[in-house]
């Protein structure tokens, strides 16, 4: 699948950012589309954990968790992981705003190791060095069998931005875009 046809393909060998409530879903969606080991770096004191039984197919056995105790160790671990050739995707959850220096170092590490990183940041805590920044929110759907996500590309160094409303069920690598008219109907129906 080429980058042109697939708007959700992350540019390889770069570091990307995702924010918003649905950023972890987005990270797992990206994990399903990549081969090779996955490394998820999250702070040691974080309460939340990925739940093995709920992960998409083929992700659980490839996933490794790294839980550093402080922010410095976290960034160091991400950099080391990015420099390791062969890692499929590095997902990291930094707690503090990423400085330009940190963001740039991560980009260099990703280029050196030919790996791709996805930083799950809080709102507005990204770095200018990020290749793309996505804002991901789950949205309510009228139909019972659809799990809708709105993934908006807010920043893109090498392309245009855009907003997509997609149906991704959290199991497989496939995703269905919801057509524009479909969105319109949703909006119209909620008024009463």
């Amino acid at each position, binding site marked *: 699948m080429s980058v042109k046809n697939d708007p959700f393909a992350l540019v390889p060998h770069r570091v990307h950012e995702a924010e918003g409530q649905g950023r972890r*879903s987005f990270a797992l969606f990206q994990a399903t589309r990549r081969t090779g080991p996955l490394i998820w770096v999250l702070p040691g004191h974080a309460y939340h954990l990925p739940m093995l039984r709920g992960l998409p197919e083929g992700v659980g056995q490839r996933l490794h968790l790294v839980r550093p105790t402080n922010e410095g160790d976290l960034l160091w671990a991400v950099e080391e992981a990015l420099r390791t050739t062969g890692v499929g995707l590095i997902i990291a959850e930094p707690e503090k705003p990423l400085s330009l220096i940190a963001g740039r170092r991560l980009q260099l590490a990703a280029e050196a190791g030919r790996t791709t990183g996805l930083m799950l940041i809080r709102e507005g805590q990204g770095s200018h060095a990020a290749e793309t920044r996505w804002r991901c929110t789950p949205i309510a759907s009228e139909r019972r069998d659809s799990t809708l996500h709105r993934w908006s590309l807010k920043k893109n160094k090498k392309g245009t931005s855009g907003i997509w409303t997609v149906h991704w069920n959290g199991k497989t690598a496939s995703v269905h875009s919801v057509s524009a008219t479909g969105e319109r109907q949703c909006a119209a129906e909620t008024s009463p």
Partner: protein
Amino acid sequence: MVARDGPGGLIADISGVPHLFGGEPELRADLHARLERVGLTLSSAIAETRGAAYALACHGGGILPEGTVQDGLARLPVSALRIGSDVAEGLSRMGLNRIGDLASLPRAPLARRFGTGLVLRLDQALGLQPEPISPEAEAPYFGVRMTLPEPIGVQADVMAGLRRLLDRLCATLAGHHRGARRLHLELHRVDREIARVEIGLARPMRDPERIAALFAKGVAEVDAGFGIEAMRLVAHVTEDQPPEQIGGPRIIHEDDALADLFSRLGNRLGFDRVLRLLPAASLIPERSFLIAPAAYSEAESPPPHRGPDRPIIIFPPELVTTKGLGQPGHPPAQFTWRRMSFNTLRADGPERITPEWWFDDPAWRSGLRDYWRVETREGARLWLFHTPQAPAGSTQNWFAQGEFA
């Protein structure tokens, strides 16, 4: 000279030793006392030959003084001769039940009928054939040391010395088909102090270059004082590492790269912070997976999931504030979680999960839980549960425990 004898036996050559204990009975009593103290039940025998000692130990134990082997063994069954059960059965069918019956028979017809194994065992037991004891080889020791003519203190010098030690150590490891798992480096300073640097490896390894890189950080932190005059490098934990073909497809190099990454991460963060999720057989959400150190576990693919969906993210239960009393047994129409208010759009459930009574888990003291997948108008899809068995005094018994994709 002690050797292993079968799965549950030890054989020792005690020629010339018993007088140190005051005689054979005293030696045997001392052995029994020591092994019983560590909680082992045993039966032992002392005899002139290995076969006789084995036969007697299997049938009551005791001591056969010198020259009484033939009489002592005569009353024992033929199965005591370390022969296969089929041979023993054949002998008993012939009416030869005791060793005494065999000893007087001519050897040639016996060998023709039952094979030379029986005759060999019989002769060994009676002392007509020699049977040496081959003791266990000493476990190899993976340690090397180096004494320096002049004290050194520069980090680069220490690393150069370490390289030389590692070359020798890795050659020894390769000779025994072992790989190091943990190593420590002792730096003996001029003032008799010893600085230690210890590292762990994510998997058994004997590549000097890659191990040296992991020592760099620890060596940099050592205080050399007035100089280091001797170095000692010990691989105190080793594992089997069969020789591998060098070169080959690229995937092997990627495995190496990942193992190196886990070694580096583990040595700085601790090996208990580089983890992997493993499936577990429990219905309790918190215990449905294990978190295991990646360096000491193998990836397992989770079993295919059946039943209601599970969230992608799990966290400890967080209290959900409900507004007013909803329909009993149904999720609240409005609730507040993490200071955000939500309106329930749709709820799937309940899925009732009962506590595992054989574990006393404080989190599950409130009894069984009814889990619901709640879709909110705000978008979030949450995993809520309530505890119908909670004491009546607490009205707040809705909790959030996970987020769906």
